[in-house]
């Protein structure tokens, strides 16, 4: 894979409170320089419109400063944005955020579907037809939600495979693996409960079989299938129960756990690929060389990726 070389983001496009602090001894922002237009348009000769314009220019920074004074969030944000990811980080490390993004797509399309869907045994089918045939972009959003679930399942498995083969579940990230497995189970629960909602023949009979499969489990099986079926036969109550699980219970749990997962990712940092070594110098390396990053030596991200 070709190495991605990024241009330096100019400071002017980053809001002031988020700007990376200048390295000691490297200038930083020019300060104390008078604005160029001070002579031609001194403050006392500015019109109200000009003053408003100036205020508007500062507004984003002012708003951020206002929020920061009350939350202290920018310190955390700069810390998070400019934390270093270790040498060798490659494209495999995008699978987690891709899963997160697929989840966001599911959440957004799901909200729009919920505006038109009726979770009742008599009307569910018709409301889906309505979404497919009459609601503007309804078919597109419905299709995105349906196929998005497959994409999310594929991505979550790829992400799990990546963390497994990279040994990323080892010390000190054991807990993040455990949270991940729970997320996997919850994602599969979403897939199972969502399948019934269109209430067509396929989803109806597949859900009966699915519920019966749960029912064959030892000890808890019968209780589990009774709970899912919510009655003697699959019907209206089953549908509302699946809907509540699919819409409220599991998504809530997933969002909370993704939060915990991300907190640990930021706190612990992501692993480097296992074959990347820091190459401990025999003599102390001057700071300048450490700062130069990965460019200088052999095992850059591209080598890391091709070694798999």
């Amino acid at each position: 894979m070709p190495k991605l070389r990024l241009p330096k983001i100019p400071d002017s496009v980053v809001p002031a409170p988020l700007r990376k602090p200048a390295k000691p001894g490297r200038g930083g922002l020019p300060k104390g320089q008078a604005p160029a237009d001070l002579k031609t348009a001194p403050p006392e000769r500015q019109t109200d419109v000009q003053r408003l314009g100036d205020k508007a220019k500062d507004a984003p920074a002012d708003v951020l400063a206002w929020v920061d004074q009350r939350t202290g969030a920018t310190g955390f944000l700069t810390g998070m944005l400019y934390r270093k990811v270790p040498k060798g980080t490659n494209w495999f490390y995008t699978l987690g955020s891709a899963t997160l993004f697929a989840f966001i797509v599911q959440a957004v399309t799901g909200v729009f579907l919920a505006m038109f869907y009726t979770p009742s045994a008599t009307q569910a089918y018709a409301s889906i037809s309505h979404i497919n045939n009459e609601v503007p972009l309804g078919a597109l959003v419905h299709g995105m939600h349906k196929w998005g679930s497959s994409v999310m399942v594929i991505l979550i498995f790829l992400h799990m495979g990546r963390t497994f083969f990279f040994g990323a579940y080892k010390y000190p990230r054991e807990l993040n693996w455990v949270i991940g497995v729970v997320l996997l189970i919850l994602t599969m629960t979403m897939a199972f409960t969502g399948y019934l909602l269109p209430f067509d023949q396929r989803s109806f009979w597949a859900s009966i079989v699915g519920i019966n499969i749960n029912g064959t489990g030892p000890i808890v099986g019968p209780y589990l299938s009774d709970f899912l079926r919510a009655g003697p036969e699959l019907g209206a109550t089953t549908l509302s129960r699946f809907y509540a699980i699919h819409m409220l219970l599991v998504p809530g749990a997933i969002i909370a756990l993704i939060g915990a997962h991300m907190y640990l990712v930021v706190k612990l940092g992501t692993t480097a690929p296992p074959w990347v070594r820091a190459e401990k110098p025999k003599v102390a390396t001057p700071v300048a060389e450490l700062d130069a990053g990965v460019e200088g030596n052999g095992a850059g991200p591209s080598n890391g990726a091709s070694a798999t």
Partner: protein
Amino acid sequence: MKPQDKQAYLEEYELLKKKGKPFFPYAVLKDSAMALIVVVVIIAMSVILGAEQGPKADPTSTTYVPRPEWYFFFLFEVLRVIKPPELVPIATIGIPTICMVLLLLLPFYDRGAERRPERRPIATTAGIFTIIAMGYLTFLGATSGSPTEIDMEVAPQYEAGKEVVAGAGCLACHKIGENGNHGPGPDLTHIASRVPRAAIIRSVEIGPGIMPSFRDLPQKKLDELSDFLSSLD
């Protein structure tokens, strides 16, 4: 992992991090590129494959294919491999539960300091084996269709029942003559020689194990169906 291994890892990691790049903009750009690919793929799938509805859910109709979403195929295939009723709980709940527990506890029993996959032969082999097994079972599930025809010579009075059975999706789980799948349900080719007619009717109405109940079928169809099945000896 011994305490000194942990210490060594943290030190090494600190160095690797020093040599790394800031998350913004480097990792953020890759993540955004990936996010873009994800939406484009999802939209393309939605446009090309669509979200067609099947026929409306109907407990009294016999045309259905009890197919789960493709990512559950492998679970269903496990049921085809492990068929005896007394072992079914192991296949349905037992195996997935054990796998999940093993997965959940992985960091607590695999505690070696080594992280390179080629130096963790057991973990890597187990991982690759799991991927191949799941891929194979998914493939089997995807290719095992649900036939809706029974090519079997029967006496004319059983033709109607044959059609009901063929159309009712029984073949997704049962084998009858040359047609249908090996499991999870038992082979019905010679069902009448093992099971009396009353028991066959009871099975169809109750739906033993994971089999759905068909008690909502119209009585006429139920009669035809049981006539046909109890002729198979």
